């Protein structure tokens, strides 16, 4: 299978600080790829490069084998790359379907050529379909304002927002950082289900246990480089932590 995204020799500096020092990584559809690393390892920079927040200094990004340049969040969305942020992702005062469709509302003409209005029903139906699809059943009403929701439910909405538009790549940036145990469960399950639907899920986290049970592959970053890549089934948290801290790609645990 060909990778959906390939990044090759990607470098990004902020002044004198080299945040990414030549990163190579391939992403495939249908898998959860976790990126772990200590603070300042460059994982946030890496995903911001993919989601269009930063532009790269050197290297190349290939989507379906074609080199592309991602200059803005809009570009990223056009390439089917959606990002679920850990915070500040939703407007509290809008209802669920308004949030899901924010910035991409469905409209209908009521006076042809003259007057377009929101198609609330279409948006609600689509939102409901996506929530059902993701088996998010804890959100039965789409007209409640988002600030009435719990943290896990909010993350669900944020995820729904990203999958509603045929995203192929979904970046989840520490999606469980602010969540309790059951709500974390919900988000982890969602990540798995998205990959089963054929999405490429990029999952950033600090929490080794979550990463090991959710991801298919795990990339370990240290000082702006990928120092190791493991299949989740063939590693454990000791090895990951060792790589995160030492930056050595320890071959095995003999």
């Amino acid at each position, binding site marked *: 299978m060909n990778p959906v995204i390939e990044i090759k020799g990607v470098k990004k500096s902020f002044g004198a600080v080299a945040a990414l020092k030549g990163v190579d990584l391939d992403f495939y559809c249908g898998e959860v790829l976790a990126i772990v690393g200590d603070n300042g390892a460059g994982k946030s920079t890496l995903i911001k490069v993919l989601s269009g927040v930063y532009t790269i200094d050197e290297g190349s990004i290939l989507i379906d084998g074609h080199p592309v340049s991602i200059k803005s969040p*809009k570009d990223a969305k056009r390439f089917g790359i959606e990002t679920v942020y850990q915070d*500040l992702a939703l*407007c509290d005062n*809008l209802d669920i379907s308004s949030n899901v469709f*924010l*910035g991409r509302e469905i409209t209908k003409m009521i006076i042809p050529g003259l007057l377009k209005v*929101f198609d609330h029903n279409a948006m609600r139906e689509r939102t409901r379909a996506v929530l059902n699809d993701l088996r998010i059943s*804890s959100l039965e*009403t789409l*007209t409640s304002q988002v600030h009435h929701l719990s943290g896990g439910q909010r993350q669900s909405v944020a995820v729904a927002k990203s999958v509603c538009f045929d995203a192929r790549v979904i970046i989840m940036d520490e999606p469980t950082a602010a969540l309790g145990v059951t709500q974390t469960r919900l988000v982890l399950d969602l990540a798995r289900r998205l990959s089963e639907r054929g999405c490429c899920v990029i999952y950033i986290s600090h929490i080794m246990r979550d990463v090991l049970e959710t991801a298919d592959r795990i990339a370990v970053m240290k000082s702006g480089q990928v120092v190791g890549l493991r299949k989740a089934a063939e590693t454990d948290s000791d090895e990951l932590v060792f790589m995160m801290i030492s930056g050595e790609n320890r071959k095995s645990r003999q």
Partner: protein
Amino acid sequence: MKSKVDTLVGEKPVATVTYQVRSWRLFNRFGPAIMLMAVVAGMSIAHPDFLTISNLMTIGLQAAVRALLAIGEVLVIISGGIDLSVGTAMSLSMVTMGLYVINSHGSLEIGMLIAIATGVLVGLVNGTLVAFLGLPPFIITLGMLGIAQGLALTLSSGFSMYGFPKEFDFLGGGQIFGIPVPIVILGVVALVASFIFRETRLGRYAYAIGGGEEAARRAGIPVRRFKVAIYAFCGGLVGISSIVLSSRINSAHPGIGIGYELDAIAAVVIGGASLMGGRGNVSGAIIGALTMAAIRFGLNVMAVTPFIQQIVIGVILIIAVYLDRLRILQEAKLDRLRAR
């Protein structure tokens, strides 16, 4: 019946919480209207002759200009901004219209377009400065308050302008089927504005920006461009208000607008909007303006001096905001309960 709130609460049977949420939601929705009815009821008890159709028409007439301004102001406030310049910008719009219609003997129709264009222009400048300089709207529009006042006085040399054509009186003083024209204008504007607030990107994104500017930006909304549009919308209503007021006083007065901005803001707040942004609506803004007009009118009927009236309005404003704060605290508490 399985209500919306019940389903959200989920597995726990929390009937009391649900009940409380519901009553607070109702209060949230109808609070301002209840306040208006309480004021009218109070006035009727104090003065049995208060509640007549003609008195209600007078209240509506007196509220019309402030309500029009409040409709523009509420969109700005929903988006998390504020516009302190609506009052003096209204004077400026009036003066530019007067210069064209009276001094240059231009046509009334074009004069009215000039009034609206002046308001929109002031709004565009406000919006552009707020969006692109990144300074607080309070400061920008406070500056604009002075600029518009100065321009209005300079252009008119400080004098009122008289001599609008006769037919102009109709807008402020005429009636359609027994209803004063300013109330009809307010009704039409309110319908159009409600539509804009609910069904168009301008309205939706104003709520979005007020509810979470960063989230709006990340959703790909061109936040700056919409801020400019929001202030311009407010400016358009300033223009319409200036036409109605000018017709009511049958002149263009360069100093009449000052103070209206505070009334508009007070009306918006009494109408349930939050100065933190994200909350408010057209009907609330109108109800707020009506409440203030009803209080003023009632106190007039009871021969309370304008000095005391100011105090009463001030007290009502503080009570309204306090009730709103109670509501927010209560709702936050209930949200925490249900989030468990």
